[in-house]
């Protein structure tokens, strides 16, 4: 039976890959969930582009401080060791290559690592880019967190993006609800299958030429 991870399961899987001491930016929307699954005994430092390192969890409702929010404009808290800075310094951290990991959502990811996550290009839609283009080119590792398929059942992993790009060749890895994919020299490599999912099922769902990079495959050779 096909295994489809929930968003929380994907978030937990991503969290497990982030080493202690990493500086991490979690994009607005679903990637924010990753924070809930970071091991509490490890020190991982969250960056929010609106000017903070050492961001902590959502506060209790009566501890909401409107001066202390994340990039999604949600209330957050301050960890010991936190620091505040202005927007140019915050984006200098990003654009200067100092963040270890960012996690972003996606409309599409192409097999060369191109990312489309800010606009469907639909006529009449209101564009909004925020910090996504800066994160895409700035973080050392750009992880995408997404469902593999659109609501219409189309693969979000594609040969080349049809939607407007956020960044070129910038994605390192894609965590989907079916499997994990690494971007390797212009091709997606499936590095982990969730549950009993098979490589062939993923090939069928994406319609792409994929590399089988799962440990099992490696072992079998």
């Amino acid at each position, binding site marked *: 039976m096909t295994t489809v991870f929930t968003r929380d399961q994907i978030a937990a899987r991503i969290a497990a890959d982030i080493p202690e001491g990493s500086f991490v930016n979690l994009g607005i929307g679903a990637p924010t969930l990753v924070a809930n699954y970071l091991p509490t005994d490890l020190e991982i430092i969250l960056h929010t582009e609106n000017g903070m390192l050492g961001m902590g969890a959502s506060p209790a409702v009566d501890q909401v401080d409107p001066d202390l929010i994340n990039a999604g404009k949600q209330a957050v808290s301050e960890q010991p060791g936190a620091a505040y800075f202005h927007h140019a310094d915050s984006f200098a951290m990003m654009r200067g290559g100092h963040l270890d990991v960012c996690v972003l959502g996606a409309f599409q990811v192409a097999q060369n690592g191109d990312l489309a996550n800010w606009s469907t290009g639909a006529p009449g839609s209101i564009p*909004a880019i925020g910090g*996504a283009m800066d994160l895409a080119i700035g973080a050392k590792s750009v992880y995408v967190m997404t469902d593999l398929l659109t609501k219409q059942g189309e693969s979000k992993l594609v040969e080349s993006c049809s939607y407007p790009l956020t*960044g*070129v060749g910038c994605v390192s890895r894609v965590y989907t609800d079916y499997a994990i994919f690494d971007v390797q020299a212009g091709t997606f490599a499936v590095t982990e299958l969730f549950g009993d999912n098979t490589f062939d099922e993923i090939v069928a769902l994406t319609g792409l030429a994929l590399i089988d990079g799962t440990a099992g495959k490696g072992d079998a050779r």
Partner: protein
Amino acid sequence: MIDKSVPNLSQAVAGIPDGATVMIGGFGRAGQPVELIDALIAQGARDLTIVNNNAGNGDTGLAALLANGRVRKIICSFPRQSDSWVFDGLYREGKIELELVPQGNLAERIRAAGAGVGAFFSPTAVGTELAEGKESRVIDGRTYLLEYPIKADFALISAYKADRWGNVIYRKTARNFGPIMATAAKTTIVQVDELVELGTLDPESVVTPGIFVDRVVVVGERRWLNNGEFVGGVDLEGRPLTASEGGDR
């Protein structure tokens, strides 16, 4: 004696002419100078170009300025939000011009204006539709786009405390665009919770030195503070919580 404080909000925003470019600090509601914006609405300037990260939230502050038809153009990174209905309506009706700028370019271009940089090669937006029409160059094997400074006639900023020389400190993530906008405008106007005695602010911790500040106006403490102590009991818009949420109402 230098004294940059002005006695009220109307004097704080005096002289902003029609057609001015006005930077407005804040990221969403945090650091948004709502009282200065309300004063600007009352003051009446029209045909403004606004520089802000967003395009207004709800019906207050920047959104109210837009709703009053005062804004010709907005330069921002993230106009579309769950509560940006005022902007959304104006944009769909073709009543406001939008220049969409990636947030990092927005911040760096504002800084460049304040720092005397003529232009800079930025790594962001290469290969995207926002690169169209921009000069590109490969430096050390990487492609960059040439970006120009964003200057303003006025900056409206919300901060925590100031002294009469215009030295300013901020509070938590409400700092955001304030320090860089203060450097990029010909006239920088800061609203603060509190004006403190000269010499009270720690020189090691001043974030915006007075050289960048022209006018300071005191608006009083926000509802989630009491004598500088965080007392909570508000929602994200700063409204007191209801009793069922653990508040006084």
